[in-house]
């Protein structure tokens, strides 16, 4: 047994985030009482530098290290960039909200940063062990964040529910992994892929595959493993909801691609049918249940389920183009969801969560600029051209039509029309329902700038989507 020195330089982004997390922990201990401003800025600084580091050290490479358990490639790099950028946005939205409620402590950002670390590990995982390690790190942080406001009973309940269900699904995933390990005699994804392609021990692999798919679907929140989404979205503090709803979805794409494409891609025919059921179910349940919600966080929760259904279309196609479409979908969805929750945060005050759809009433009278931002975001979620949501839908539809599954595309667009209704209802509140008593909105400049930038990004990517599409394509071309 020889000991090989791992190439640490490849994993520089993760190492950097981890060290900074430790620094923040210590700094925050000593700098308490000043609203943790230092911790916040340090975390944001870390996220931005990680974007740079990831591109610098990993773009254009395909190399493994740590005895083949860690891979640095374009896919991982793009995911890390997206995760960091989105989390940066989310934290920028969160700060003011937490401060108003006297919940602003460094722990929040620290937990978030560790969650980011977990997601980055998932993105770079090249063995079942690394996948699981990253996943558990994310989930532990998420549990704690959902329960962040201890006084809040709804939040605690949501956290408990989330914990139990997530533990169950992790168990499933692990069980599936153990079977795959049994079949392949290896944890290494490349070896598993080789075994899967050779067609040996097909039955065992198929069993493992099913359990893994269940676990992955749970992390996405796809039907029928979606039960936790509405409760967690509604119960958690709004900043936590945004956090849960954006970056982890991208990490879930990583989970899917690493396990089911890099690892078990040869069994595409077998998981395609399961994924189809999941996708159609998600589209149906997500869109239909969202129609009747009155709470905007819960509505966006169901809408997430519907979007996951769309995202799965890309996986179902099973082509490189399809996977890149799914990745594009996840990234842009994160951007849109972050903005939508950002508006909810903007409207809320202490003692008033603004989490009912009705609370959007008269936004146009109160501030026409934010009304436009909300308008763009809602139409983008609907998938209207001119916004990035259109390209997201278009790419996944195209990928299923290219593999001759036109019926699936038709089903998807019909549900998209149904989905349009509840987004329009928000626009209706913003624009059509006038409210004279609404006082002008006040928000710190930082929040306003970030929100405006978010809205503009959705619009700009909707008009010039090429660079991001290309990046997703290149990332999956390997």
């Amino acid at each position: 047994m020889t000991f090989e020195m791992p190439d640490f330089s490849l994993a520089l982004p993760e190492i950097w985030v981890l060290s900074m997390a430790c620094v923040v922990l210590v700094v925050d201990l000593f700098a308490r009482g000043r609203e943790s401003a230092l911790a916040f800025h340090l975390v944001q600084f870390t996220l931005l530098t990680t974007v740079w580091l990831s591109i610098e050290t990993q773009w254009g490479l395909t190399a493994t290290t740590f005895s083949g358990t860690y891979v640095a490639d374009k896919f991982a790099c793009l995911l890390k960039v997206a995760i960091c950028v989105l989390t940066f946005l989310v934290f920028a939205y969160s700060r003011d909200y937490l401060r108003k409620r006297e919940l602003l402590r460094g722990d929040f950002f620290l937990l978030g940063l560790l969650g980011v670390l977990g997601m980055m590990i998932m993105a770079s995982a090249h063995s079942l062990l690394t996948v699981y390690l990253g996943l558990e790190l994310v989930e532990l942080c998420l549990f704690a964040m959902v329960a962040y406001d201890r006084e809040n009973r709804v939040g605690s309940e949501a956290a408990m529910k989330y914990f139990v269900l997530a533990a169950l699904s992790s168990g499933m995933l692990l069980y599936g992994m153990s079977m795959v390990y049994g079949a392949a005699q290896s944890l290494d994804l490349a070896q598993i892929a080789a075994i899967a392609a050779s067609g040996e021990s097909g039955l065992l692999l198929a069993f493992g595959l099913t359990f893994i798919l269940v676990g992955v679907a749970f992390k996405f929140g796809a039907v029928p493993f979606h039960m936790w989404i509405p409760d967690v979205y509604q119960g958690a503090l709004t900043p936590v909801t945004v956090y849960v709803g954006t970056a982890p979805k991208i990490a879930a794409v990583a989970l899917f691609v690493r396990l089911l494409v890099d690892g078990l891609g040869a069994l595409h025919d077998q998981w395609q049918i399961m994924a189809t059921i999941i996708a159609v179910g998600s589209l149906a349940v997500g869109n239909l249940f969202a129609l009747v919600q009155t709470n905007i966080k819960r509505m966006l929760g169901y809408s997430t389920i519907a979007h996951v259904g769309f995202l799965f279309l890309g996986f179902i196609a099973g082509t490189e183009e399809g996977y890149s479409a799914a990745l594009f979908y996840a990234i842009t969805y994160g951007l849109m969801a972050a903005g939508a929750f950002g508006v909810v945060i903007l409207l809320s005050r202490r003692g008033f969560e603004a989490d009912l759809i009705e609370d959007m009433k008269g936004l146009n009278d109160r501030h026409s600029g934010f009304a436009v931002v909300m308008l763009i975001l809602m139409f983008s979620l609907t998938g209207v051209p001119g916004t990035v949501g259109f390209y997201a839908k278009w790419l996944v539809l195209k990928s299923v039509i290219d593999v001759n599954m036109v019926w699936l595309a038709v089903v998807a667009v019909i549900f998209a029309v149904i989905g349009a209704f509840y987004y329009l209802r928000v626009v209706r509140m913003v624009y059509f329902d006038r409210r004279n008593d609404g006082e002008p909105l006040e928000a710190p400049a930082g929040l306003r700038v970030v929100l405006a930038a978010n809205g503009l990004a959705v619009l700009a990517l909707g008009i010039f989507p090429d660079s991001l599409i290309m990046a997703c394509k290149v990332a999956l071309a390997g």
Partner: protein
Amino acid sequence: MLSLLIWLPILGGALVLAAGERSQGATARWLALGTGVVVFLLSSVLYFGFEIGTSAMQFVERVAWVPAFDVYYYLGVDGISTPLILLTTFATVLVIIAGWEVIQYKQTQYLAAFLIMEGLMVGVFSALDAILFYVFWEAMLVPMFLIIGIWGGPNRIYATIKFFLYTFMGSVLMLVALIYLRYQTDSFGILDFHGTALALSEQILIFLAFLVAFAVKVPMWPVHTWLPDAHVEAPTGGSVILAAIMLKIGAYGFLRFSLPITPAASMELAWLLIALSLIAVVYIGLVAIVQEDMKKLIAYSSVAHMGFVTLGFFVIFDIFAHTNGTESGGGSAVMALEGGVVQMISHGFVSAALFLCVGVLYDRAHSRLIKDYGGVANRMPIFAAFFVLFAMANVGLPGTSGFVGEFMVILASLQGNFWYAALAALTLILGAAYTLWLIKRVVYGEVANAQVAALTDLNAREFIVLGVLAGAVLLLGIWPAPLIEVMAPSLQHLLQQVIATP
């Protein structure tokens, strides 16, 4: 050139919004009007610079837009789209003037919405890339959705959501069809789609997907039900744009997509389209008679008139079947298409004018119900003269623009099937019935009540708007040749494509 026509109004709209934030109204209004007029003048350059006698695309612009998927920013116009672009820029100017004093609530947003929509509509008419077309086609819904929803009547929210969902439903299926066509032809160019060899069953599915999209927009019976609601609730300007241009976009879609891309399916299903058109013409005509709301009446009359357009487009197959492709048959078929397009333009003027007339009354008396009026001519003689003129054009009186299109379509369908022509001609009577009855009850007679007695005649602004429209209606009625000249080669080319393929 075309880019300028698309982006100048959109930019203008953004500027109007920005100006409105600072000053109150006046600057923004003049800015909006200025933009509208400049765009209209630019579009007339398009008309005069248009080379007559060729069916090729002109003023072409082609730049790679999303190279990852071969999507081009590809614009160009032919004889079909040029008149429609002119109509768009013309109507927008009128709408801006019409909303000058009437709109009080958030006027700058109102004007900006119309300018942005103008740019998007010009985009629809000039896009030659399927995805670009779809982008404009869908994006156009957004300002209209807001216009009806914000400045509409009491039931506006129901109407606008219905409007959006109907049209959205139609267009997503079209998107699927477009992506499928790309899969077949390896290009998103609309011209590349033309003449693609597709099996009949494929063609029929694609045709149906297009049909849903375009039939909703036109609207054809039985998917017309969003239109009366949307019209009744929309502000005057919204109704004008809706009737004058949005409906034409559906008909334009038939010419640009359905007929040339799926000719065999069009032939196969022409009976269906003709049947739907005739139902629209006759049944909706009857429905129009019993309306009590003026706007609703005009909305139903729009559905009936658009029935003529679609009849003209799809009767060509019958004409060919009947005349066995002889010279005269070809002439009649072209005439049917020409008649349809002329009817589109004419209806754009006439329906816009009628909606503006109702708007004039509504601004004064705040009612759209016929029974609240009577004897308006006694108090508003100039207005009454205009109203009667436009009503006559709606009926299709010779000398007005309404006559030309309807006459051409009826004459041509006579070559196809006598009964089509007979049923279509019936609409002249029905149209006369509901329009003249409307006029009788609203304009003539004794002064009905105090409200009517208090009416004042047109002010200068309204006079200009209606006067310009009256001029257009008469000009097109007496001398339609310049219009027909522009579009004839393109329609002939279209006809060859349609007939050659099967």
